[in-house]
């Protein structure tokens, strides 16, 4: 068997080990690569900067726990910026695990900043219905959510009494591993003019980019890299910055093996032609 044939039939365990070791390397030896901040992230931060204390923001956790490794840093960073500015938060979710994500990553930042439940923030939890649900909460939130995630009567929560429909919300932020950005762009931005900010997973960034270009989405973060940039912009490097070097190494491994695969493929084709 020639070297090219051996390369083409490489055992997948070699790739797995290469991936594992190179992803682990930045955690053992932090590389701390400088990063250029994109205009997307700057716009995102500037939009949040414009909020005043007491403003209410709808945070939609449209991701499961599996996507937290991508967007977890952005969730914590947003909670830090909103709490530093005294902005009130109402959380909903179109994904069953979204309310758990809020409780595990967003809520601890708010409570450590002295936020009171029901007055400064509320976690309403998951409701079925996707776009229909998002259209309905814009018109009457307490009709959809008669109780919050903890089982409290929604009508008894002071924040929800004051923020029962779209008119009370300054903007919407969606952490999105699916299609919720489009739902909010159609049902909140197009219909009522409420600005929508999106934090999609990297693979969805291109999908939502036309909405951002058209102005239906006010600002957008580009997946984990956008989250890392946003952390740096608010001066609180955390989860996303820890992971960004590992992500770089992982993507390098993928590119390296694509190149190797093509070297083997082209080499083998040339050899057959000669024969």
């Amino acid at each position, binding site marked *: 068997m020639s070297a090219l044939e051996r390369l083409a039939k*490489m055992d997948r365990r070699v790739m797995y080990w290469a991936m594992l070791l190179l992803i682990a390397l930045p955690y053992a030896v932090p590389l701390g690569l*400088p990063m250029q901040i994109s205009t997307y992230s700057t716009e995102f931060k500037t939009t949040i900067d414009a909020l005043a204390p007491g403003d209410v923001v709808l945070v939609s956790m449209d991701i499961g726990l599996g996507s937290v*490794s991508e967007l977890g840093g952005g969730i914590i960073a947003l909670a830090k910026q909103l709490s530093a500015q005294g902005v009130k938060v109402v959380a909903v979710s179109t994904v069953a695990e979204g309310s758990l994500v809020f409780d*595990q990553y967003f809520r601890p930042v708010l409570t450590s900043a002295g936020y009171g439940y029901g007055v400064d923030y509320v976690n309403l939890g998951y409701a079925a219905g996707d776009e*229909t*649900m998002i259209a309905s909460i814009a018109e009457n939130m307490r009709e959809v959510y008669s109780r919050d995630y903890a089982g409290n009567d929604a009508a008894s929560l002071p924040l929800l009494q004051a923020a029962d429909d779209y008119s009370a919300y300054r903007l919407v932020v969606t952490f999105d591993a699916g299609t919720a950005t489009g739902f909010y762009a159609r049902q909140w931005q197009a219909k009522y003019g409420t600005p929508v900010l999106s934090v999609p997973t990297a693979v969805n960034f291109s999908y939502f980019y*036309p909405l951002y270009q058209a102005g239906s989405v006010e600002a957008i973060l580009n997946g984990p*890299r956008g989250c890392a940039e946003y952390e740096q912009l608010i001066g609180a490097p955390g989860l996303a910055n820890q992971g*960004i070097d590992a992500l*770089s190494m992982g993507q390098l491994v993928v590119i390296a093996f694509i190149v190797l695969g093509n070297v083997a493929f082209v080499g083998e084709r040339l050899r057959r032609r000669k024969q």
Partner: protein
Amino acid sequence: MSLINRREIPIAIGVAACTLVIASYFTDNASLASASGSLQLWGIIIAGFATLLGLFSYVAYNGRQIVKKRSVYSGVAVASALGTIAIGLALSPSSSQYSWLTSNILTPLSMSVGSFIGFFIVSAAFRTFRARSLEAGIVLAAAAMIMLKNMPVGEYLLPGVLPLGNWLNDIVSLGGNRGFTIAFAVGAIIAGVRQILGFERGRVAK
């Protein structure tokens, strides 16, 4: 049941519901908005029942696997689902016990499964991303540029990758995605018009 009862009434209900919701979206009429809001709430309730139906289907399928094949995996799947529901119903999803369950079992498992994708991608990319034609080569090069653009180290490995990647994103990809978005919107409008005119009959009996 007569043909009118089986076909025409469901079609009429569909036409009325669709017309009402669309009219409400484009007007400021309070009565229309109220009626549309009620219809949307019904939709949310029906979607909630669909989730419940999914649970029944899941338990029924795995139950059959347990009985027929003595499948341990199906046993674990059913026990996990019912156990989680029981704890959530008995103690509330915001209780410390439920939080412990999600923090220590569900979160690590979800993240691990998500992380596995990286390993499968490297193996799949090695075996399938081959420049078999000019078009495939262009797609490969564009994908590599976007990957390099998205990682901080890319700017050092290949200077100029950032503007090139942005050009691919802002011009090439945006053009294609706008085409998809417009096609999707036109398709949705056609589906809506067909529904209003009563041509959508897939859901009614023949």
